[in-house]
């Protein structure tokens, strides 16, 4: 199965596998946040629209929201984060995923960026 990682303008990532996607935050986002100390996870079964607030990450410095990258239904959450929230920044592409969704509109994936486009975007944004 093809796996691809897509990036949002709000620094989330989605690792797509079939019609499922695992959402986390990019390394670039976690660098900005610094040490993460708490995450507020979504409920399984809930449907979120694209760009809707799904979760809140608290770092020592500040709180910041996680925005849902594409319309979808939450099918799993990463329970490990309840005791080890630092995984979000230590292993963003692996054990640091936050929740899994069933993608309801795959066409929306095309609106997201690949890594090189993302890097370009953040450099432009300064």
């Amino acid at each position, binding site marked *: 199965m093809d796996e691809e990682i897509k990036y949002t303008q709000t620094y989330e990532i989605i690792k797509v596998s079939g019609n499922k996607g695992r959402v986390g935050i990019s390394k670039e986002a976690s*660098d900005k946040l*610094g*040490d993460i*100390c*708490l995450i*507020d996870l979504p409920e399984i079964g809930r449907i979120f629209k694209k760009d809707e607030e799904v979760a*809140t990450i*608290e770092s*020592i*410095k*500040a*709180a910041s929201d996680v925005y849902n990258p594409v319309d979808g239904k939450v099918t799993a959450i990463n329970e490990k984060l309840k005791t080890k929230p*630092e995984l979000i920044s230590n292993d963003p592409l692996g054990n640091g995923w936050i929740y899994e969704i069933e993608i309801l509109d795959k066409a929306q994936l095309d609106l997201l960026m690949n890594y090189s486009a993302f890097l370009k975007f953040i450099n432009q944004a300064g």
Partner: protein
Amino acid sequence: MLKTNLYERHISLGAKLIEFGGWLMPLHYTNGIISEHLNTRKSSGIFDVSHMGRFMVKGKDSVIFLQKVLTNNAEALQVGESQYTLVQNEKGCVKDDAYLYYFKQNEYLLVVNASNRLKDWQYFKEQSKDLSDVILYDATDDIDMVSLQGPKSKEILLSVLKKGTLPEPLRNKLSIIYIGEVEVLVGRTGYTGEPLCFELFVDKKCSLKVWDTLISAGALPVGLGARDTLRLEANMPLYGHELSESIPVFASHLAKFAVSFSELKGDFIGRKSLLKQFDTFKKIEKKDYSGLKNLPQKQVPFELLDKGVARQGDSIYINGNIIGHVTSGTAVPYWETEGQGISSIFKSSYLLRSICIGLVSSKIWERDIVEIEVRGSRIKAIAMPYFLRNEAPPYARAITAKSLLEKETTAESLENIPLNLEILIKEAISNNHWRQNECINLIPSEMTQSKIVKLLSVFDPSGRYAEHKKIKAFYDSEVFYYQGTEFIFKVETLLKKEMANYLGCRNIEPRVISGQMANAVVFGALVDYLNMDDKKTEPRRIKRVINHHIIKGGHLSAQPMGALKDYVSMDPVTEKPAVTEFPVMQHDPYALDLEKTKEIILQYLPELIIFGRSVILYKEPIKEIKEFIREQNINCLLMYDMAHVLGLSGRFFQEPFKDGADIVTGSTHKTFFGPQRGVIASDYIEPEPGYKFWEAIENRAFPGSVSNHHLGTLIGLLAAVYEMRYFKDSYQKQIINNAKAFAQALSENGLKVAGNPKLHFTQTHQVIIEVGFKNGPEIAVRLEENNIITNFQATAEEEGFTASGAIRMGVAEMTRFGMKEDDFKELAGLMSDLILNYVNIKEKIIAFRQRFLDMQYCFEDKSFEIFLNDLIDEIKK
């Protein structure tokens, strides 16, 4: 944007930078805020704080200027001291908070917040205009400032120190040292709550070198992120959060240390409003809410009880009503611990908790539960007394809401009581057996009494009253308030006579039931005596006392925090008790520096000098001081607290009254043979003025301190004085020989023994070994596990008893059980094996003790066995 001289270092250490107060500063380095916070608590963190403003204040009007623009009492500072202070406005609110350092004569250094530097500078310039001789100089760009905080900081500084000594182990003390060739001004100050804290001031040309040296010696760099979480966990305010031009000074719990209303300050900016706040503050602390308008809100630390992180600006509610808002908040890490009490250690894992400081209604009380609105939901939080405690150096330890809430205990139900009593009896027997038959007891303040002394102490009149007072109308006869007291009166009379004979003096007051009480009685009586002829005005306290400082082995009971508290004046300049410590020799802190002592006597003209200490290796130079005050015609009372050495009074150690002591106090159960009591002695004769002081002492004893003076142990004590008088020559000589032999042998076995080797380290029963900074508690516990009972002792360089680097021992009790020089040498060998090589010696110690079970220097031979049996039979009847 401004950069400090260490900027390039921060870059090479991988710092992530932020703008702060106009400066580009490290927020954190590669490992992040949590790890930097934890490193500081367990090891040692180094911070570049050169962004802070540093103003030099010179000129003869400096003090006038500082007294006017700052809240604290600048005149209280001696060279070598610093103080936390505030810059206040007319309304009594905070323009800035600052630290005032006094390193060098006539030169004050004021450290202010980076963000307020310009504002402060302009304000100070304006305020100094009318003073003819104040020179203000902004030295921020000339001097750099580095902070070194955490338990390993002292070891690190000592390892790089080339010349000079660290400041005394008390907060706010200063000194000047050299790291390499670089002069470094050091203050025991900081913004982390760490008990081992140092802030260093270095010429900008040398700061890089000092920074690099400290990093190579093991200090770990910390950025502003962890600086903020550390100060929050220490419940310390930050300008712009807890402090501002509209928040009253006394909303901060630190104000009581930072604001002075000393007469020396005269009128100063905002004084009137501050005084109002202070009055309200004192009321609020006692739950009296009148006058609340002067101080409607105060800063309170909260810990969140549910998931969530409170941030600045979040609203705080109680019962649905808003009561204030969060001024600082985040999650902070703390080390998990294992073990209890002094054995508790940091594990390698940590937890996070969410804490904040709120500016809330002054009616909020410790442990109140509030709700904080965090991102739309209300989260429960508890008002904490503190987040951190640092009184057990070298570590600062987190106090969590969970541990605070777990403390409840329930009382036992009635039906368990007989069983509990049975357990108590069995445990008492087993403890007695352990201490008396299996342990080597080396605590110098303890003694086992002979069987006769023990038994007599539980006889009738224990349980009786025998209050009595000398009545002049009956030619000084003692009149008793109760009948049936003829026997105890006889005992007390004999006791006074025998004890007077033992000490070589005329007067004995035996009714005080502890050494601490004996001292309190003397201090109280001195105040009575000083005020004897003025019955109409408030009695004045003792003007000035010279004593041994507690960190240099002084008795607790001779300290302002102990029995001296209510009897010594406050020094109006320092705003501290008017107590001056004996200077000690630099190479041997257990020895008093006689020449310097004479200087301070002339400088301070004390009314009372207290000799005697609980860490005592040498004779006290009473004779020399007595001669000196006679020559100088100084009217000063010489008191010798012989607590530890009462049983050594005599020709082998020293004879207090022959040496010139005016008053002797003591405990009867350290080197002396008695049950636990106190005693006071003097040699005054009626009608000399001193006898009036003696009568004041008798009055302070009864009715001043005791009604019932514990009659059972009074009989035991008389028997003990008989024993002491009969056996003292052989006992005292043996003790001193044993102590010297023990010290010598410990030293030969590779342990570091304190004291002068030329005197075989000691002239008393005490032997001190130095085992390295903070190792004392661990070694004392290890000794205990091997049945050797000692106590750990902080030396003059250490920050507190938990950081102790010494073990204090005494040979008195084991001498009484018959140990001689060779036996102590054998013991020294075993102990060295245990301390240096971790050899388990428990079984050997139990076997060793079997040779020393029979008490000597008492009447326990065959001829007295019959009397022992009579005593036991009488009790059993």
